[in-house]
């Protein structure tokens, strides 16, 4: 029996890697993807391209602008002096924000009145817009506070500051709030999922399409051996991918792995059981490789989006949240992030691990039952 399985494994490997380009696509590309994505997925908002529309041109207005620039968040791209140009810059997307200070700004301030400043933000990307407005209000808030303290001093003649609540932030697990630390572990999961799902789903259908399936049906191979022959190679490939991408994450991006590596690989194994099972299932319901590819995508796409990879599950409507309970990728992501960033172990992650285990076994059992029907 082991001999037959070994034969199937070898045959599968040969078939998959007959074209040397496959090697590149399966092993090298995930690493490249991790690199690119690791750099690209930053929701950090920095270097906000800004235009300054200062009609007052006073010491006060310039000082406020200096504060904005000094924060490091804003890059002044241009100084404008008319509406049309400001509008044009926003229309063309050359700036994300325009800070406008009208005539009389300094006057209002010195008269102890309220001086308005207008911030026009490109709301196309509401996320960025919100963050930019947050920066502005933080900076102007600090400025306001100082001016108030100054006024209080002038009025009372005493050096008496008003109480100030200063929020001191401590970010846990991702001290520098690097979005990369959040995304890279997720990318590992995504990249591995896609590759193994697609390979497995196409593998059996390929034989159906080319016509070698009949030969297999008349050979003495048992359904179990067949399934093993079709899953083990891809499980191996999956593991190699996980290791490769993890190495990139840890050594290139310096994402910490605070938890147990063995646990990580164990959980990966359980997760791979589910992806391979699903891939095989897709394989059995498709007649052509075209159908297999589309079905894989039809499944994977929502699975990726509803996994918490980029969009927090907590924000989703209740009904959709219930759906995510059936998504193995969601559990795997919790585990992977837990191990990487939080350094927690099986004591905290046991619910997710058990669910993955149960899912994996259930899916593979279902699939092998289908195979038993077709092969016997």
């Amino acid at each position, binding site marked *: 029996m082991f001999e037959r399985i070994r034969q199937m494994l070898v045959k599968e490997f040969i078939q998959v890697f007959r*074209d040397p*380009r496959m090697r590149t696509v399966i092993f090298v590309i995930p690493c490249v*993807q991790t690199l*690119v*994505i690791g750099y690209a997925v*930053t*929701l*950090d908002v920095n270097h906000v391209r800004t235009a300054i529309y200062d009609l007052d041109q006073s010491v006060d207005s310039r000082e406020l602008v200096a504060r904005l620039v000094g924060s490091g968040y804003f890059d002044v791209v241009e100084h404008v002096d008319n509406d049309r140009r400001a509008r044009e810059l926003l*229309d063309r997307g050359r700036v*994300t924000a325009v800070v406008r200070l009208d005539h009389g700004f300094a006057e209002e301030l010195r008269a*102890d*009145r*309220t001086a308005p*400043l207008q*911030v*026009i*933000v490109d709301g*196309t990307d*509401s*996320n960025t817009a*919100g*963050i930019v407005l*947050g*920066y*502005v*209000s933080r900076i102007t*808030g600090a400025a*306001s*506070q100082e*001016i*108030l303290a100054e*006024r*209080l001093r002038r009025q009372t003649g005493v050096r008496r500051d*008003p*109480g*100030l*609540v*200063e*929020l001191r*932030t*401590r*970010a*846990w697990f991702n001290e520098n709030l690097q979005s990369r*630390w*959040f995304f890279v572990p997720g990318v590992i999961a995504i990249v591995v999922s*896609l590759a193994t799902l697609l*390979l497995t789903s*196409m593998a059996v259908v390929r034989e159906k*399409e080319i016509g070698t399936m009949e030969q297999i049906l008349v050979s003495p191979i048992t359904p179990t051996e067949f399934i093993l022959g079709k899953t083990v190679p891809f499980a191996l490939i999956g593991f190699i991918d996980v290791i490769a991408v993890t190495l990139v994450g840890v050594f290139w991006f310096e994402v910490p792995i605070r938890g147990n590596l063995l646990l990580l690989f164990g959980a990966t194994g359980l997760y791979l059981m589910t992806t391979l099972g699903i891939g095989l299932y897709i394989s059995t319901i498709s007649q052509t*490789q*075209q159908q297999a*590819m*589309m079905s894989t995508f039809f499944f994977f*796409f929502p699975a990726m989006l509803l996994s918490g990879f980029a*969009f927090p599950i907590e*924000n*989703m*409507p209740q009904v*959709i949240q219930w759906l995510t309970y059936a998504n193995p990728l969601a559990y795997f992501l919790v585990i992977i992030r837990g191990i990487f960033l*939080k350094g927690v172990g099986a004591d905290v992650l046991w619910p997710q691990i058990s669910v993955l285990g149960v899912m994996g076994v259930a899916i593979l059992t279902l699939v092998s039952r289908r195979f038993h029907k077709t092969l016997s």
Partner: protein
Amino acid sequence: MKLRRVRAVARKEFLHIIRDPRSLGMAIAIPMLMLVLFGFALTVDVDNVPLVVWDQSLSPASRELVSRFDGSPYFSLAGSVRNERELAEAIDRREALVGLVVPADFAQRIEAGRTVPVEFVVDGSDSNKATIAIGYGEAIAAMYSQEVAIEALRRVGGNRLRPPLDVRPRVWFNADMESRNYIIPGLIAVIMMVIAALLTSLTVAREWERGTMEQLISTPVQGPELILGKLIPYFAVAMLDVLLAVLMGEFVFHVPLRGNVALVFGLGAIFLAGALSMGMLISIVAKSQLLASQLAMVTTFLPAFLLSGFMIPVANMPPVIRAITYVVPASYFVALLHGIYLKGVGLEILAGEAILLVLYGTVMVLVANLKFKKKL
């Protein structure tokens, strides 16, 4: 180029599509699924962030501060804790995303006009959420401080004082900051890129695998005729998808379309010509469906998703990655769609991107034709 042969190929390809209703069905269902998910289920808007409070002061002043947090739409009070351990547990178990720690001498220090450090502990794993939550927290703290200062001034000076700086934010293009209005238009580009790849990436490889291509290359049919003939039916299906997406955007999600809808379809057609040709190119170069599917996924799915600016603004990415996005065709189309939908601008502003789109289409068609050889 003989029209008769192109027609024969187009007709055959059309028959293939019809005879595979499952793939055709999925080609329509996948875009709709993507739209529904993004429209209804997925949002990066951050509100109701679960918060735990460790109020060591328990004074009217501290309770006032806490009620500011609780009363804000951005936070929701998940409970109070009595010590560091409980705080840590709450965050580990993801019962709370942030923790507010008010020191015991809060009221006294405020009264004495001194600075009070209030600790804000944040789960940094999801850095995006964390950053935004911190922004909100700081805003609340700053507002509280300002009111304290104004109160102090009032007691001393008796004047009705207003805050010195009044930030007036104006959000252009997406005034209600609905992330949906930003995501849905960009999504159309991503959908098109993915569908194009799914539809065409296997078509030529399939014929090589089955042996029908060998027959075809022994006939007088020319490479360009084959490619054009194959593109036509898939172009029709893809344009249908664009129509569905635009209609759903209008009638289901009420995304405002301020610009010219004809421009959406016109540019969409150009983009599709390029995307479909790229899928065809993959098919031609790969020669096996297995390799073609992997290549298609890798070159279209993830880049379109993460590098096109549809979700993550390109402006925030490091320069190297921004350079790479120039090679991602979806990014041009996304920029164009954002402009047309949200800014209501036309070609006069977006000419640059439009030209790049035309260039992309042309290059893809040319390369696909170059790479196709009528030889084994």
